[in-house]
C-alpha cells in the first residue's frame, strides 16, 4: 500500500527554479564568505547580537520604546563589528551598502509610507469618532472589543497584506475608541497585533507570504491555500481567549472619555468605504501601493466632500507672513514655517523605523558575508536535524528564534529561508510545508516581543509626535513588554507548528505533489 500519489507526478515546467534573487537572497548565500573576522565566522554575528542585547536592555529592561534609540544601538553594533575584521575594512563597509539596497527593505519601507499616510488621513477624517458611534450602536462592549478588534484587524491585514500597516491603522483608529469604551489597553493592543499576525501569515499580497513561497520553490496561491488549516486552527482558540480575557481584564479610567463619547459621529464611518477599497483592490491582485493609493483617494475625497476635515488637515504649508498665496486652502499663517497635515505626519512618523530597517538588513548581510549563517546551518544539519521530526522542529524553532531576535520579520525570514529550504530538502519535505513553517513562525514572532517591528510600529503611534499619549493621556500608552503574553494568535500559531512537527499534522513530502510555477509578485 502506498501512501503517496501513484502514477506520473504532476508536470513541472522544468525551468530554472526560483532563486529568491528578487528579494536579495540566494546568490549571496551561496557565495564564499568575503569578510574574515578575528574570532572566526561566529564573530560576524556581533553586530546583530549587540543590537539585540541593546534592544532587550532598552525596551525590555528599561521599558523605553524609542525607535531612534534602537537606531543608535544598530549603528554602534555595526561599528563594533568593523573592528573585528581582518585586513581591509572596505569589504565590510561595502557589505553595509549591499545589505541596505536589498529589495526586501524597500518593500517594507514603501508599504509603511503609504499605510502611514492612509491611516493618518482616516484619523483626520473622524474615523475614530465613527467607530465609537458604531461600537455604541452595535453594543460592542468593553469585554468583547478585543475579540472584535482581532477579527477586524485580521481582515484588514489579510486584505492589504501588511501587518505593520494594519497595526498602524488599528492602533491609530480603533485602539483609542476601544480604550475609551473601557477595553483593557494591553489586551486590545495584543488583539490588534494578533490580527496583524493572522493577515501577515495568510494574505497572498503579504511580503512575508511572497518571500516564503519564492524561497521554498512554491507557488503563492498554493501556499496560501495550504496554510489555511494552520491559521484557522490557531485563530479559533485565539478568538475564544480574547473573549475570556476581555471579561477578566479591567479597562482604565480616562478623564474626558464621556466628552469624547459625545463626539461620536456616524459620518466618520464613511471611511469603512476607504478601507473597503483598499481591501478589495488588494484582494483582486493589485499592487499594495496601488491599493492603498486608491483608498487614500477615496479617504481624501470623503473628508472634503462630507466636511470631515479641511484641506489643510491633509496637507498644510505654514508660512510666517501673509502673502498672495495665503488665501489657498492648504496655506496657513503661523508662528513657525513648515509643512504639516495627515500625509506629512503619517509618512514622517515612520522615518526612524525606516532607518532602523536599513541597518538591520545591513547587519544580516554582514552575518551572511562573514560566514556566521553558514556556520549555523552546518551545525544544524550535522547535530540537530537528524530525523524528519527533529528537522521540522529545527525549522520551526530556528525560524521562531531568529524572528524573535530580529526586529523586522521580513528581514529575519529572508535570513532563515535558505536554512529552511536546505534542511527541508534533505528530508524531501514539500515546498508548501516548508513555506508554511517559515511564514507562520515569522509572522507570529514578528509581533510578540517588545523589540519586534510589529510591536514597535504600534508603539510608535502611541508615543510619536502628536501620538495617542499626547492626545489622550498616558493611559493610552501601553508598555510593549506587557503585551507579550497576550498575543494569543501568535503564540497559538507557534504551538500549532510544534504540534504539527511532532505529530505530522499537515506534513507533505516532495513526492506527494509538485508546486505550480511560481508566480513572482
Amino acid at each position, binding site marked *: 500500500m502506498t501512501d503517496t500519489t501513484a502514477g506520473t507526478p504532476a508536470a513541472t515546467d522544468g525551468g530554472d527554479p526560483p532563486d529568491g534573487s528578487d528579494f536579495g537572497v540566494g546568490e549571496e548565500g551561496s557565495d564564499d564568505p568575503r569578510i574574515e573576522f578575528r574570532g572566526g565566522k561566529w564573530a560576524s554575528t556581533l553586530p546583530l547580537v549587540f543590537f539585540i542585547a541593546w534592544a532587550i536592555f532598552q525596551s525590555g529592561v528599561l521599558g523605553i520604546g524609542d525607535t531612534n534609540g534602537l537606531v543608535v544601538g544598530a549603528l554602534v553594533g555595526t561599528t563594533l563589528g568593523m573592528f573585528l575584521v581582518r585586513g581591509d575594512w572596505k569589504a565590510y563597509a561595502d557589505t553595509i551598502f549591499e545589505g541596505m539596497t536589498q529589495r526586501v527593505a524597500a518593500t517594507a519601507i514603501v508599504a509603511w509610507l503609504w499605510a502611514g499616510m492612509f491611516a493618518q488621513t482616516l484619523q483626520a477624517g473622524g474615523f475614530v469618532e465613527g467607530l465609537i458611534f458604531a461600537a455604541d450602536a452595535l453594543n460592542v462592549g468593553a469585554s468583547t472589543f478585543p475579540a472584535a478588534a482581532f477579527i477586524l484587524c485580521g481582515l484588514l491585514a489579510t486584505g492589504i497584506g501588511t501587518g505593520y500597516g494594519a497595526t498602524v491603522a488599528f492602533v491609530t483608529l480603533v485602539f483609542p475608541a476601544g480604550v475609551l469604551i473601557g477595553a483593557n489597553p494591553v489586551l486590545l493592543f495584543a488583539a490588534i497585533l494578533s490580527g496583524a499576525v493572522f493577515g501577515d501569515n495568510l494574505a497572498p499580497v503579504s511580503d512575508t507570504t511572497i518571500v516564503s513561497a519564492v524561497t521554498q520553490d512554491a507557488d503563492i496561491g498554493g501556499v496560501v491555500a495550504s496554510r489555511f488549516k494552520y491559521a484557522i486552527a490557531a485563530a479559533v482558540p485565539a478568538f475564544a481567549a480574547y473573549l475570556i480575557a476581555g471579561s477578566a481584564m479591567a479597562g482604565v479610567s480616562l478623564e474626558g472619555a464621556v466628552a469624547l463619547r459625545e463626539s461620536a459621529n456616524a459620518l466618520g464611518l464613511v471611511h469603512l468605504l476607504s478601507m473597503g477599497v483598499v481591501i478589495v483592490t488588494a484582494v483582486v491582485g493589485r499592487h499594495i501601493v496601488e491599493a492603498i493609493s486608491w483608498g487614500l483617494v477615496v479617504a481624501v475625497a470623503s473628508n472634503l466632500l462630507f466636511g470631515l476635515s479641511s484641506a489643510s488637515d491633509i496637507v498644510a504649508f505654514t508660512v510666517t507672513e501673509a502673502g498672495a498665496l495665503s488665501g489657498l486652502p492648504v496655506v496657513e499663517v503661523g508662528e513657525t514655517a513648515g509643512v504639516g497635515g495627515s500625509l506629512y505626519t503619517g509618512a514622517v512618523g515612520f522615518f526612524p523605523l525606516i532607518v532602523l530597517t536599513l541597518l538591520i538588513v545591513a547587519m544580516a548581510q554582514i552575518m551572511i558575508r562573514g560566514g556566521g549563517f553558514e556556520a549555523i546551518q552546518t551545525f544544524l544539519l550535522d547535530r540537530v536535524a537528524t530525523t524528519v521530526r527533529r528537522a521540522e522542529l529545527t525549522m520551526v524553532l530556528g525560524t521562531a528564534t531568529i524572528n524573535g531576535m530580529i526586529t523586522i520579520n521580513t528581514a529575519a525570514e529572508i535570513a532563515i529561508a535558505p536554512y529552511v529550504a536546505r534542511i527541508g530538502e534533505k528530508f524531501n519535505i514539500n515546498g508548501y510545508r516548508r513555506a508554511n513553517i517559515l511564514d507562520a513562525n515569522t509572522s507570529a514572532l514578528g509581533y510578540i516581543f517588545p523589540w519586534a517591528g510589529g510591536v514597535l510600529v504600534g508603539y510608535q503611534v502611541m508615543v510619536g509626535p502628536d501620538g495617542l499619549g499626547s492626545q489622550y493621556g498616558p493611559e493610552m500608552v501601553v508598555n510593549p513588554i506587557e503585551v507579550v503574553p497576550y498575543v494569543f494568535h501568535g503564540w497559538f500559531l507557534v504551538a500549532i507548528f510544534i504540534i504539527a512537527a511532532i505529530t505530522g499534522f*499537515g506534513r507533505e513530502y516532495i513526492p506527494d505533489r509538485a508546486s505550480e510555477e511560481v508566480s513572482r509578485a
Partner: protein
Amino acid sequence: MSVFDKFLAGWSFRGSTPDYAAGDAIEVMVTGESDGGVHVARIGDSTLRIEGAPGDAVDTRVVVDVESWDESSHTGRATYRKTVGGSAF
C-alpha cells in the same frame, strides 16, 4: 489540482516513514550519495536508492520509477528517469 483540493490538501497526520510501491513514478530530491556511489533520496526517515542518476544529481529534483519497496525497513530501489529541477538554494 482544483482550488478546493488545494485547501483540503494536508488535512491529515502523516508519518515519518512514507512507503511507496513498485511501479510508482515519483519526483524526489536527491539528498546524498552512498559509499558505493549510488544516489540516495531520503524521504522523511525512509530511504530510496536511485540507480542510473547523473553524477551531479545530489540536490536536484528527479523523476524516478520505483522498482521495489520494503515496508518493514521503509527502504526501496528506483531507477532514474529524468531531472526536473534543482534545489531552491
